[in-house]
């Protein structure tokens, strides 16, 4: 014990790896519920499935404080501009999960008022199929997203913005 404290303890890591490690373990989802999938999202956050095990329990009600947008449900044409605007209001770096078949492709509603896939208006990182996906499905999607985050370079978003300019 004593021997250990006498030595100054330190950790060696690359800064980019360290940042992605921090990002992946403290994702703040945006608590935006659209339709049926939102109920399963709440169930995932509630006591039985407890998304806090993955560091994601901080559901924010404002897009300005969140970095993960879970599009949980049907996006209608009337709602689409709102979704786009909410996504634009989220600060970088940000990720999007399309939860459920409606968000992926319109699902069972090939109708005049439903947007056929949320990836037409915002970029999506992870698709989770199901109608609605079970909480296990959502958790799996969140873990996939964590893996994706850990493989990304933290400067990716800055570079992307420059390219747009």
């Amino acid at each position: 014990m004593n021997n250990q404290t006498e030595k100054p303890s330190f950790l060696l890591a690359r800064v980019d790896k360290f940042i992605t490690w921090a990002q992946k373990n403290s994702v703040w989802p945006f608590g935006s519920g659209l339709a049926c999938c939102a109920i399963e999202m709440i169930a995932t956050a509630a006591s039985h499935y407890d998304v806090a095990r993955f560091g994601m329990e901080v559901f924010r009600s404002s897009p300005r404080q969140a970095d993960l947008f879970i599009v949980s449900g049907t996006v209608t044409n009337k709602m689409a501009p709102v979704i786009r605007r909410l996504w634009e209001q989220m600060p970088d770096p940000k990720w999007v999960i399309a939860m459920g078949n409606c968000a992926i492709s319109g699902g069972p509603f090939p109708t005049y008022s439903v947007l056929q896939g949320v990836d037409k208006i915002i970029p999506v990182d992870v698709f989770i199929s199901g109608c609605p996906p079970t909480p296990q499905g959502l958790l799996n999607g969140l873990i996939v997203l964590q893996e994706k985050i850990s493989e990304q370079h933290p400067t990716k978003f800055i570079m992307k913005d420059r390219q747009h300019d």
Partner: protein
Amino acid sequence: MAFKEILLNMGPQHPSTHGVLRLKVALDNEVVMKVTPVLGYLHRGMEKLFENRTYQQITPLTDRFDYLAAISNNLGYLLAVEKLMGIEVPKRAQYIRVIFTELQRLASHLAWVGFFANDIGAMSVLLYGFIEREDILEIFEEYSGARLTVHAFRVGGVPTDINDKIIDMINTFILKLPKRIADIETLLTGNRIWKHRTIGVGVISPEDAISLGLTGPSLRSTGIKWDIRKDIPYSSYQDFQFEVPTSANGDLYDRYVLRLEEIKQSMRIIRQALDTLPQGETLTKVPRVLKIAPGEVFHSIEAPKGELGFYIKSNGTDKPERVKMKSPSFINMQSLETMCLGNLFADIVAVLGSLDIVLGEIDK
């Protein structure tokens, strides 16, 4: 203080609007003068879609109406179709339907208590309510494979019989639930803050309630005893003994007490149905391609949120000419303004929570 009208916008993305509802609120300082709901952010064109789907294909789509009480939607739609076809469902299937719709009512009410308390600021009740709700969803999963959008029934009965394992699960759950309800009551019923936020808030008179077409617990909280399970029994509800709780004040607290009482009555019904479950068939033979002779029918059931009715017009083909859904949330939502006028701005969220709205059902 001088009158100064303030216009505020709530939603469509707001943590307390239960989905994608938008409210335009006019305030005099902090007193509500006018509330205008703007709907349609979840309008999925269901009724148009129904006209392009066969009768059997519509059943799973009804799950997506009121996604907190999918089985009630299945039952409402199927009873209307069966009435239109004039077929009789076997007694055992009727009892199984009753068991599952009552379980669904429990799930819906438990979720409601949680959301309502969460809207007022008591977060822990949501977590309590969801523990028990999860048990119900596990029963559904065991029965049909799905948790939320269950598609539990078919035209002519139920697809599979319930086995001993499911009966055991239901029995265990029924034994466990009263203690949990007692926990929720301990947290809320006598709580001074809770009473302060709910008693005398969101009051509606019986006359207004009838004129606005209010149904379900919101109507019964004004003292009108009106429950379709009792008044126009369907699916063998006449075989069971249960009370229809009412209260007199028509405020939020009454609606809360009433729903907890309804949970207890539902447990009574489930117990009776399990004890007296008849033997026999569970599915009537119906043709694979349902072609229904021209006719029209309206049938309504008592869903957790109020009267859920289906108007179906057939035209001799395998697809309906028109399906119109009378959704309880849509009707109840209309009364929001009447309930909110003169209350404080913060009470809008509480009143909205008490109405038990589901946007999928309002916007169709």
